[in-house]
């Protein structure tokens, strides 16, 4: 491992090139000041090392990811199908016209509340892929009629494909929560003899979360652009951050510090939600699957200076999370 100076050189480079200037040395020092362990060089270097492994998706990367999402999860598969269904045609104008047909029969919507990050993502998704505004709806535009009145139907006439878009899938909880909506959409389609496809596309997902969504929901597909396998679990057996042959003391120090302070900050999940142990952040927020020592910034005690702040979801007007 690099010495303190070498680690700062790496962090400087990351800050310049990827982190959008969010972690300058004074900010890092303020973050380090959370930890009494930094009184010793070894503790300080362990934390700097951990920080140097942090994977951040900035504004540019997010824009690139939404382009890749549309291209790889939506556009190419449809083009492949069109070609396969038409003797592998290479007639570009024909393929494009069928793609346009498919687009007209598609609606994109964010997974989650309109005030959540999925909606922000849709804005980028539409801009970067130059898609028309009327292909985007929100959740309230899904249904018409009421369950009680028995006239529940899908509001969008002629639409047979719905794409739910999300930025991050850690445990898969949110997508699983939406399963009820998906089930209802499909049931309505089935009753009306109009097959409805519902897909879940996400920019960054853990393998575990994605697997759970596939297993526990009726989405026709659940795809992502960046998949984080078990090697991204910071202190897991297959951790890429502490591969075989790396200094055991470093791993032990990193884990001990993360666990000790994580237990104070987020007692139920000291190493991130459902023990995800990630080191991942996005331009607009940091998932709670990431180590809490990185992002904790609640108004309540304990006081903590985050390095990549998380903006928590406040679920009621009273402020209870």
């Amino acid at each position, binding site marked *: 491992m690099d010495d303190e100076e070498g680690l700062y*050189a790496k962090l*400087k480079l990351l800050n*310049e090139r990827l982190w*959008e*200037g*969010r972690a*300058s*040395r*004074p900010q890092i020092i303020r973050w380090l000041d959370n930890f009494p362990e930094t009184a010793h060089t070894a503790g300080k270097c362990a934390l700097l090392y951990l920080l140097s492994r942090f994977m951040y998706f900035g504004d540019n990367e997010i824009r690139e990811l939404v382009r890749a999402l549309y291209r790889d999860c939506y556009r190419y598969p449809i083009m492949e199908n069109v070609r396969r269904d038409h003797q592998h045609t290479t007639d570009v104008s024909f393929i494009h016209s069928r793609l346009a047909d498919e687009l007209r029969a598609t609606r994109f919507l964010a997974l989650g509340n309109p005030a959540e990050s999925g909606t922000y993502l849709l804005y980028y998704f539409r801009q970067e892929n130059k898609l028309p505004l009327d292909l985007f709806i929100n959740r309230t535009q899904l249904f018409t009629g009421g369950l009680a009145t028995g006239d529940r139907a899908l509001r969008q006439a002629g639409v047979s494909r719905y794409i739910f878009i999300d930025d991050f899938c850690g445990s898969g909880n949110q997508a699983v929560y939406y399963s009820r909506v998906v089930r209802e959409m499909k049931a309505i389609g089935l009753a009306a003899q109009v097959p409805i496809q519902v897909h879940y596309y996400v920019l960054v997902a853990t393998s575990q979360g994605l697997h759970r969504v596939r297993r526990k929901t009726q989405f026709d597909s659940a795809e992502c652009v960046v998949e984080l396998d078990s090697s991204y679990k910071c202190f897991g057996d297959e951790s890429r951050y502490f591969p075989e042959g790396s200094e055991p003391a470093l791993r032990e120090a990193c884990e001990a510090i993360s666990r000790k302070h994580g237990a104070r900050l987020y007692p139920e999940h000291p190493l991130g939600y459902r023990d995800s142990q990630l080191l991942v952040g996005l331009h607009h927020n940091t998932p709670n699957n990431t180590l809490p020592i990185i992002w904790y910034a609640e108004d309540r005690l304990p006081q903590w200076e985050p390095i990549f702040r998380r903006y928590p979801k406040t679920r009621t007007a009273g402020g209870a999370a």
Partner: protein
Amino acid sequence: MTQPPPNPFNITKATDFSDEQIVRTWVDLPGDGFFTIADPTSPMPMILSGGKGSGRTHLMRYFSYPVQKLRHPGDILASLKTDGYVGVYLRCTGLNAGRFHGKGQSSEVWDVVFAYYMDLWLTQLTLQTMGEALAGQPEFLAQQPGICMEILNIIDTSGLPQASTIESLIGVLHQLQRDIDVSVNNVALDRRLDVNIRATRGELVFRIPQIFTRRFSGLDGIQILYLVDELENLTEAQQRYIQTLIREREAPTSFKVGARRYGLRTYKTLSADEENREGSEFQMVFLDRDHIENHARYTNFARSLIARRIVEAYPPIGSADQVAEKLDGFFEDMDRTPYMQAETSFLAAQQVEERPYFTKLKKQLSAIHFTNREASEIVNRLSVPDLPLVEKLNVFLFYQDWSRRQHLLTASASIAQQCAHYLKRDPAATRHVQAMAHFRTDLFAQLLRDSGQKQRYLGLSTLIDMSAGLPRNLLQILKYTFKWASFNGQEPFSVEPIKRDAQQSGVMEASHWFFEDARVVGDHGREVEQSIERLATLFRQLRYSDKPVECSLITFSADLSFVRQEARAVIKLAEEWSLLISIPGGQRDRNTGAVDPKFELNPMLCPRWDLPISRRGAISLSKAEVNAIFYPLREVEFDTVIRDRLGRMMAPFRSSSSASEALPGFGD
């Protein structure tokens, strides 16, 4: 998210600048300016050479027509008359010259095709320039059809469309060039090079300016200056074409050719292999050498360059002159008072006997069987607790006496006595005065090293000196320094000066960058790199030895006539790639009286090995030493060189021929 402040030094290559930026960032040399070095009105062709980043491209683009136009808004023709030239700029990079080679064609064929291709290219650039410069001139409009007809008379026009305007003529020539492109690009497939050469080599290049001048009186007194940049991108055979143009130059045309030092492959021409000679066919200017030889002028130029960049990035800061005035204040400097007390204060808290150089000295004395009491007595005599630098000087003088086999207890007493005189500024203390004058920076460097501190490369002057006449090096140092300062939470060029840690880190990063950037391309790259590492290691070992004999050592001289040819080749390459800088005048050998070549390690590399930036002393390397350092794969011999050299400079000071330890002053 924090938006970082704009880094004024982000762009370090003139090729990345727009024409407007070339004008805005232009800084002339103090005094008579660049025009005296590279007069664009001189009919004598010139090769502008130097290391990477010597400012060649900026200068040549400044001479080019698009920039002339920006410099002189209004009546451009009148301005060209005042300038006395019009610049036609061509970069050899965009040519993809590697295409004109091999693929089943003989070199003679490629020579002809390449020359024709270049003729067409230069011609189009000339016509574009002329067409634009003269547009709207009634006389030119009247002459245009005649000019086109005369030009078409130079070439075989069979099958070509008519052209009566400059624009349509450019279209015709462009199509001819495109046809060659297609043929050359496909020759690898069908082995057929279908090119019809329609003009004699050089005719278009020289005749067209003559036609314009003859037919349009407004061009009287205006030289057509071809600015051919980045010659290093052409092969030797292709460079011969350029050399031929230089040799066959005809008024009103002249050339300025830009090439990196290592990129000048030949002076031969296509005219019966005749070779162009400096002073006869062309004038040679090495921009970086010129800067190095005019240190004060370069320093002032560098300061103006920095000020200009800062003003460009932060306009409210004031004028370039105002910024230049306060430039030093933007960079924290170190205490440069005679005893550097502020810089050495980290030792003040340490007990004298625990100071690292005394701990080491006591160990060395113990190894030659001095008692603890004797060693402590010596340390006590040499110590000057409040002035660690003077203390270090005493230790150095003590080592000198030790190497001269003097009685050590007596020597320490004598040094203590002389030191007392020295501190009272008694002129009799000449030994101390002279040694401090010579070795002050080395002793300070040793103090830092002894204490595990980083070497200090601080202050604007140091940064400028480190750049060794290459403005791009300076910009790189400043670019990295600025980035470090921003990362460290500073706002450079605002209230407080850039702190030392940012300067230190910036300098170190720039040094690493230079070592990578100046890496010799080709088979010998690794050999040159290893040799430079060996040379720098030798300098470092000598600098941090107990008794360095040369101060600020980054220079060597050697008689290269009898060293191995391979070693000579490595030195030549290292010089061409600016890793070594040749010192004009060389060094007179003390024994033979002959003048040996002398080379300085590029100061950009020095921080990598904790070496000084400014050179003073030089060592003379023997034939064996040169071979051991510069002849590839000589690790074993090099170790011997180091051992021999160091043995004479490290206590107990063995002579090179004897491995036995000397025990001076013991047991009297």
